[in-house]
């Protein structure tokens, strides 16, 4: 053992001297939609790793997936590190876009991450996508609006583990609040309750999940018998009824609810924990941002599910600097780089040990994430056809919201997804 270590050390020394002598500089390129945040911390990595230069390129978040398809189907080695949305990892591995990272992470390091995050980044036993952070869905409310309405709403009674508000209670209170604030509609309160990421499986699937429904079959290749079940019919009916009643938002696109909440046009909204900081940027103050645990369905309190998962770092399979890229990915996800990153970008930490009082001081909503993480959190569908799953299921949610017949909508989605996923089964 000692001998092996000595050899390795010598090798490292020789290699580093050699590279130094040849003045060989390694440059690794990172493609992300968070270039500002990563650029702000990369100096510290470069200082710790002389000879390695990190260049970060910005790509608009909506175009990032398109960009990866174009780059990687052309086997481009332009980028070494790719910032990938967690559930996409399985699809990318299937297409041969990502390199395994088992050489750059020890088993202990991988095990330190939250289990759901490790699970989504692992394909066929190899670790491909290391989490930059996690996320958690919670319920926000505008304290000023509630106070103005004079309706009693006390969240201190909820501890998340045993007690939390139920949907029926919330709907009742939200309607009272809206009625008190805007009895004749002249004030322009849009809806009592909104879903920030409406018609996105990330947030919407928590409804059927909270009734015990699963997202996809175990092997990730079927939805028949999974989404055409009681839990899904009930959840979709519950959702559609409340949209039709004017209680849940309609007509707003994903993320449009955010700005309307900040502008006091919506009293209650489901968003993610990091929205706390965006709300501050959008003109709210710590005094008027209220938040509590995601509601449960009556009689299904023990089944409640919250969404989780976030962006990950992966290595391009065609990269010629995998070694340096691996070091960087380890640093920014497991290593001290992640602590710096969390200060730049408000995410739920990717491991239990990173929940600290310092973080809570910046974003108190993270306390809720700490309670939910690993207890109620359900990862998004793990499937090589995740993009198809998202496109078809998002459309289904949107159609149901706009009044489509629920049985038809589910039957269509099952039909389309079964035929799309059959491609991966061959």
């Amino acid at each position, binding site marked *: 053992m000692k001998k092996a270590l000595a050899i390795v050390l010598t090798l490292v020394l020789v290699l580093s001297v050699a590279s130094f002598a040849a003045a060989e500089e390694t440059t690794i390129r990172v493609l992300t939609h968070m270039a500002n945040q990563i650029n702000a911390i990369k100096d510290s990595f470069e200082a710790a790793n002389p000879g390695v230069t990190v260049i970060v390129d910005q790509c608009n978040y909506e175009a990032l*997936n*398109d960009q990866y*398809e*174009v780059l990687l*189907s052309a086997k481009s080695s332009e980028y070494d590190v790719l910032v990938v949305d967690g559930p996409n990892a399985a*699809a990318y591995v299937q*297409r041969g876009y990502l390199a395994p990272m088992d050489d750059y992470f020890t088993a202990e390091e991988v095990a330190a991450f939250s289990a759901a995050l490790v699970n989504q980044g692992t394909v066929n036993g190899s670790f491909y996508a290391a989490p930059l952070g996690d996320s958690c869905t919670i319920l926000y409310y505008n304290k000023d609006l509630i106070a103005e309405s004079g309706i009693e709403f006390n969240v201190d009674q909820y501890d998340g583990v045993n007690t939390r508000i139920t949907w029926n209670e919330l709907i009742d209170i939200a309607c009272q609040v809206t009625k008190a604030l805007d009895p004749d509609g002249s004030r322009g309160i*849009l809806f009592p309750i909104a879903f920030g990421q409406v018609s996105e499986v990330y947030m919407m699937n928590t409804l059927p999940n909270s009734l015990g429904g699963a997202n996809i079959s175990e092997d990730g290749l079927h939805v028949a018998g999974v989404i055409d079940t009681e839990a899904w019919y009930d959840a979709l009916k519950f959702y559609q009824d409340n949209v039709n009643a004017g209680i849940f938002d*309609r*007509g*707003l696109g994903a993320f449009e609810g955010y700005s309307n909440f900040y502008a006091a046009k919506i009293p209650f909204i489901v968003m993610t924990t990091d929205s706390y900081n965006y709300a501050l940027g959008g003109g709210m103050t710590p005094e008027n941002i209220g938040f509590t645990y995601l509601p449960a369905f009556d009689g299904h309190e023990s089944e409640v599910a919250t969404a989780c998962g976030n962006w990950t770092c992966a290595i391009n399979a065609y990269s010629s600097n995998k070694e340096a890229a691996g070091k960087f990915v380890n640093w920014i996800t497991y290593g001290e780089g992640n602590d710096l990153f969390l200060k730049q970008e408000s995410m739920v930490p990717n491991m239990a040990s990173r929940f600290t009082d310092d973080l809570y001081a910046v974003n108190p909503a993270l306390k809720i994430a700490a309670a939910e993480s690993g207890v109620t959190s359900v990862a998004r569908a793990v499937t090589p*056809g995740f*993009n*198809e799953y998202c*496109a078809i299921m*998002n*459309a289904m949610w*949107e*159609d149901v919201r*706009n009044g*489509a017949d629920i049985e038809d*909508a589910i039957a*269509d989605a099952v*039909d*389309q997804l079964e*035929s*799309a996923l*059959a*491609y991966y089964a*061959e």
Partner: protein
Amino acid sequence: MTRLNARDKRSGMLPYLLLLPVLVFAVIFKLYPIFYSFVSGFQFKGAVSLRTYELMFADKTFWNSVSVTVKMNLIMTPLQIILSLIMALMVNANLKGIGVYRSVYYLPVTISMPVAAICFSMILSYNNGVANTILGSFGVPVQGFFNDKTQAMACIIALCTWKGCGYWMMFYLAGLKGIDDSLYEAATVDGAGYFAKLFHVTLPMLRRTTLFVIVADTSTNLLLFAPMKLITDGGPRSTTDVLMYEAYRQAFKYGNYSKGSAITSVLIVIILLVVLLEFRMMADRDR
């Protein structure tokens, strides 16, 4: 189209040399990618196979897209052509300051599609769109527009017509400018009214312009997908899921380049057939 004269005998390689730059660029940046695209359609997971086409033709989504594409074009293309002809006839009038109207009608053409999409989704928004507010003041209930499966396609057609008509109008206007005034004078002497002149002089003289506009407009509209990508995502209930958007989705969202290519190839074949048919129909009338 070519004139035979003394130049031809001495030209030798010269015309080929003059063509060379365009040819080289066309081959590298157009012809090769098109060829590659056709070939990719005949691959399945890397191997040469007809399986991609087999799966595509068995796919309900594909046939839905075919029907959506055909329906959209049957409405949109004639609508745009008739509207732009009417607009051209109007801005051809001998009126002071008519140039201002021409410019105003052409203005939407200069707006890029992402910007146009933003404008229309704001106006037709379910919650606070100006359109719903105006309709509401007449007692009409709130409309879904892009969110309503019976209205979404109509809204996209409205957007594209708004953005497209000014462009085709210019071609018609140019055609109108080329018609000899003496023809109208002769018709007036014969006692023809405005509509008689329109149908017996103007429209026949515009045949060539019309052919160009029809062909160019058809191919543009058959390949349209930007508004679907930017606004509706092919929904609601797949009512705006045109073939080109499906091809885009397969290639860019699902990473299934073979299937995207197969759909594109089918589209290109459809376009060529339609264009040939249009040529044939116009030529028949010529005789």
